């Protein structure tokens, strides 16, 4: 964190190297998140590039009371939303694998990746809240700041997301059991 602050100060003074070093630790996680949010792999790459450009351009507006990742995710979400075509606004309607960047990025496995189910079953905001909570380990306060929602909204929707994905997980377990018993 202290290192981050030093790098942020250097980036605010115009050091591209400091900024590159600063975001290096965040870029894989951010790109993974953008792959789940964008309509294609190319869009996710563009969104990542735009996120870093905007973050560097407005680095002087960064408020150190926030975690840097919180601020970065806010920019990333805005960019992802901007790149998203209107016909795929509703993730629930995304049925085919052709346009889904996740289908090319998930390693072959016997089991279904739960994040694909999450894309299908949850709204964008709830999906993001779940991702930030369980992948990025963000606190409820930080998630509500990223999503610009109240803390109670965040708590309620995290619970809803958990319930929906819990049902999906149970369904999967039931199918696996029935297959095992023939």
């Amino acid at each position: 964190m202290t290192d981050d602050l030093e790098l942020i100060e250097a980036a605010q003074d115009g050091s591209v190297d400091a900024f590159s070093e600063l975001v290096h630790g965040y870029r894989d996680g951010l790109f993974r998140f953008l792959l789940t949010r964008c309509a294609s792999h190319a869009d996710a790459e563009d969104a990542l590039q735009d996120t870093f450009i905007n973050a560097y351009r407005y680095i002087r507006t960064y408020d150190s009371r926030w975690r840097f990742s919180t601020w970065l995710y806010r920019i990333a979400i805005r960019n992802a939303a901007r790149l998203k075509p209107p016909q795929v606004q509703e993730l629930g309607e995304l049925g085919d694998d052709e346009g889904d960047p996740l289908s090319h990025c998930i390693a072959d496995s016997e089991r279904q990746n739960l994040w694909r189910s999450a894309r299908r079953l949850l709204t964008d905001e709830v999906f993001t809240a779940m991702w930030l909570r369980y992948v990025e380990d963000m606190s409820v306060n930080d998630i509500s700041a990223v999503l610009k929602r109240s803390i109670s909204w965040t708590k309620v929707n995290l619970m809803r997301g958990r319930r929906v994905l819990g049902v999906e997980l149970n369904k999967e377990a039931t199918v696996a059991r029935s297959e095992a018993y023939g």
Partner: protein
Amino acid sequence: MDKLGKRLRDDAASIEAEISAGLDRRIQASLQNVAPERARPASRRSRPYSFWWASSLTGIAAAIAVIAVINLERPEPTPIAGNTVQLFVIPAINLKVEAAMLTSPLQQELEALQSDLRKVQRAVREDVDLSF
């Protein structure tokens, strides 16, 4: 971490998100062409409560002063001659009212009532004459 949380974390980790060298170069090249913008000046701090109280009181005092000056400079209204209204006081008339009892045939009763009415009219006229 519970089962669902662990599963979500594992599944996220299984998403391959390697940033290609080409993308990395692209990002670095883009960053070279950008400079951090000047931070916008912080929005003006809200003024203290005492400021709002002071300005409210000043406003009220100014309004009172303007009203006082306008009213003091205005000349006294003078009564317009010949436009006075004279009031006449009409004394209350004490009328005696009695209910008519029908004890005779209708024609006779009508004549008696008309006679009574004439007497009453005379009495009223006399009373009015005495009053003025």
